[in-house]
């Protein structure tokens, strides 16, 4: 016996299905969408970051926004640790950063302060992988 479906129920099912597909596509797309900023790549990952304010000043706190995308389909680890140090001086910052996930591979972090002029190296630990990026602060 053929099941009788009401047109309203059929429409609702179709709508839910369409939303589900969109959400799946959108989730992948969002996770791989890197905002504008400095880009750093490893074999497996691409990360993008920007600081607020854009120009880092010695002795002035700043915020860092960070996003990470896998080059292949695997999801980005939520285990993110962000830090920086001065290799020539053999010291890091006097502060630990606090990283807040924003979803879709994006993170907000605060507690940044470079207390000396010279070359600083950002350390981005994403899961078991470390990416680095040099900046010169005057």
């Amino acid at each position, binding site marked *: 016996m053929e099941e009788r479906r009401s047109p309203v129920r059929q429409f609702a099912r179709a709508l839910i299905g369409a939303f589900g597909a969109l959400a799946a596509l959108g989730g992948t797309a969002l996770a791989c969408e890197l905002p504008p900023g400095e880009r750093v790549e490893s074999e497996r990952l691409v990360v993008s970051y920007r600081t607020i304010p854009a120009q880092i000043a010695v002795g002035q706190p700043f915020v860092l926004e960070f996003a990470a995308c896998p080059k292949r389909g695997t999801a980005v680890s939520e285990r993110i640790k962000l830090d920086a140090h001065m290799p020539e001086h053999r010291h890091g910052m006097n502060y630990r950063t606090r990283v807040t996930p924003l979803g879709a591979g994006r993170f907000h972090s*605060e507690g940044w302060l470079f207390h000396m002029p010279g070359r600083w190296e950002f350390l981005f630990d994403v899961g078991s992988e470390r990416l680095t990026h040099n900046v010169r602060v005057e």
Partner: protein
Amino acid sequence: MIRFILAALLLCAGAARAQLLHAQAQLLDFTAAETRAILRHGPWPAPWSPDPSNRVSGNPAAIALGERLFFEPRLSPSGKVLCATCHAPFRGWQDARARALGLAEVDRNTPSLYDVRQQRWFGWDGAGDSLWAQSIRPILDAREMGGSQEHAAALVRADAELACGYQRAFGAPPPAADAALLAGIGKALAAFQETIVSGRAPFDEFRDALEQGDSAAAARYPAAAQRGLRIFVGRGNCSACHFGPTFSNGEFHDTGVPFFIKGGVEPGRHAGIGKLQVNSFNLLGAHNDDRSGASAVKTRQVALEHRNFGEFKVPSLRNVAQTAPYMHNGSLVTLADVVRHYSELSPDRLHSDGESLLKPLRLSAGETSDLVAFLESLTERASVLPPRRPAAPCRR
């Protein structure tokens, strides 16, 4: 013949004087990198902004109350010690002693209050994260003013002038809670101290002339000070820590000053962070007026590391010639002693896990004297502070 000899002598004297003037008015050939480093130490005065953690920062009524409290001996139950005992205005807002003396001698040198609004951490160990919290500390310290929360609060409530001043500053009478009132006292004291700014120094005139490309004006800066400045921003690497317009990066370093004190060692920043974290008046507490939370980020995120042991705050160098003796324990009497300390620094005294920035400079006697000439050129030409007047009676 005599006329001829006199004329020749005058000519010689004139030539010698011109040569002297030329020597005096000489501008060193600073490289582009040196010039950039020099320009970073200005402009001066630095822009002033109110402290967001203190709702009465910049408020004239709070400044007046703070000034009254700063010179108020009754804040100490002994009636003998006031803020100005150690922070004497006529001694560069410090006391010219190696170690401060309140009710008893403490282990540290009194820091000057010049440009204190520009600081991020307060005290040699940075145990204070705001000027108002730091202003409460000596009131309660048994060796300094020996007071208590209850005593300070009772004084302000009972004294008609102080209570009136509080009402004017905060727009409400002194609160019933002692802790809230003590926080208010700290905030008024801070509002006053934020007005203690240093004036422009010969260095500032040189720096601005350099920025404007005015070689003639820049050349008026003494040659010895120029040579000292070159060491400061160059080989000496002093400006890595003594950075920016205040000549301090506001952070903490181990500079190899012995930190043994009676009965133990001075832990410096390591203990300072510990004290900060348990202080109920810190910026993470209820008395912080900054609802955005931005001012408390440093307090929440500061890292406690083993290397903090023996680290002390980098002091500002503005008006440094007025604030002898030097270092956290006042162990160096003159600026020449300080320069010699860095010149003959023993790397063995520095932490093995610390930074590798400090190296003995091995300066000659002439270079030492040049660096001192530069440091002396950071002395303001004239005070920019208004003269103190007797406090006017308070009217609500």
